[in-house]
């Protein structure tokens, strides 16, 4: 039996936690890099939603400028939502999720790594691309900064909350649209504070308050969501 027990309790010190976190992050980024198209696609979707509005509503600059904060935020929200379903699904289908749940590593860390990888591939580029959308929708220049900062603070929350929905629906044969149903109501506060921040920036009002609220939601999300996600995953797999 002596040989067997190389599998001894490894002290799960902070360092190994960080190592695990980085391993998860690296793997998920690698996965996306492999199917390269996944990297740019949320962005292109984001761009296209923004193009649909002038086409569907009205191409007048003044009218569009009024719409802009809302449309950009709704587009960001939808494109996060759409990419959400795949966060755990492929892992579930090929059995890697099962293996993750069976591993002795803290699920909290694994899950957090996955969500942050997801954000780095959707929310972050969306925030960086937002000014282009702003130009296309004639957002006044003063609003650009507010738009980017509010997206940077808001999209991680969207990823965290969305992942809870993804974890709950991963065991179902078709989670695709159910997830929107679960998650959209939770997204609404983020949407409201996000657009309010941009509108405040456009009109020159202070936007610190909104950003603080977005930050608070993010902090809450980072602490609570991974626990909820982990629990949801265990439930989904055991079904």
């Amino acid at each position: 039996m002596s040989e067997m027990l190389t599998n001894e309790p490894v002290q799960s010190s902070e360092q190994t936690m960080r190592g695990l976190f980085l391993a998860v992050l690296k793997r998920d980024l690698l996965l996306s890099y492999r199917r390269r198209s996944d990297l740019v696609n949320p962005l292109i979707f984001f761009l296209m939603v923004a193009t649909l509005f002038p086409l569907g509503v009205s191409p007048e600059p003044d009218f569009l400028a009024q719409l802009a904060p809302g449309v950009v935020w709704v587009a960001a929200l939808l494109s996060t939502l759409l990419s959400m379903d795949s966060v755990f699904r492929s892992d579930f289908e090929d059995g890697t999720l099962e293996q993750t749940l069976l591993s002795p590593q803290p699920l909290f860390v694994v899950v957090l790594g996955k969500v942050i990888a997801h954000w780095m591939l959707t929310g972050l580029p969306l925030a960086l691309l937002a000014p282009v959308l702003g130009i296309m929708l004639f957002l006044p220049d003063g609003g650009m900064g507010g738009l980017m900062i509010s997206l940077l603070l808001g999209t991680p929350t969207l990823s965290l909350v969305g992942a809870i929905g993804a974890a709950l629906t991963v065991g179902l044969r078709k989670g695709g649209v159910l997830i929107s149903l679960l998650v959209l109501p939770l997204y609404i506060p983020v949407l409201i504070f996000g657009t309010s921040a941009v509108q405040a920036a456009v009109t020159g009002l202070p936007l610190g308050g909104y950003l603080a609220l977005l930050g608070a939601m993010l902090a809450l999300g980072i602490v609570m969501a991974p626990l909820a996600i982990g629990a949801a995953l265990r439930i989904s797999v055991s079904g």
Partner: protein
Amino acid sequence: MSEPLLNVKQLFCERDDRILFEDLNFVVTQGEVVQIEGQNGSGKTTLLRILGGLSRNFEGDIYWKGEPIDDVADDFRRSLLYFGHQPGVKAILTPEENLNWYAAMHPAIVHEQIFDALEQVGLKGYEDVPCHMLSAGQNRRVSLARLYLSHAPLWILDEPFTAIDKRGVAAKEALIARHAERGGSVILTTHHELKMGDRVRRINLDELAGTS
């Protein structure tokens, strides 16, 4: 008799209004190979998922080294290697990357052994090919390479020989025998005829449920 690793008491499971097994009692000790037998649909996979802690749809008690399994879940997970119906191989990663990930999840595994293990399962030269470009059997082999990497005392294997060719099956049987000799325990299901002689203890679910 050596220390019992796993002790199953009065296990009862019903699926879809059909009782799969009831009052199932058995003990797995060190060095034992236990084969769960039964025809298709007799509940083998269900039992293994219960033992591995993946499914909670059961009644009864399971003890790990004498403790209720829920109380020592962490220790149990560290001591377990589970191989399910799904191989747990990511199609767009290469075999090497897949095993790296497994190693990250199971810190006791040394990265240097990964290439060794891949060679052992006959995937030398395929380390860098994305798994979706491998054949069905090669994909299962990637997952089986974990058997060469693991130091876990308890292996739970659900049909490990599916899609594996004859030479591969023989190698894996030898590996299982070696693991048992070194004091490990194996619980497995397979529809292949195991050529391991007396070492294997059989538990037949058909007889238990009286379905056959």
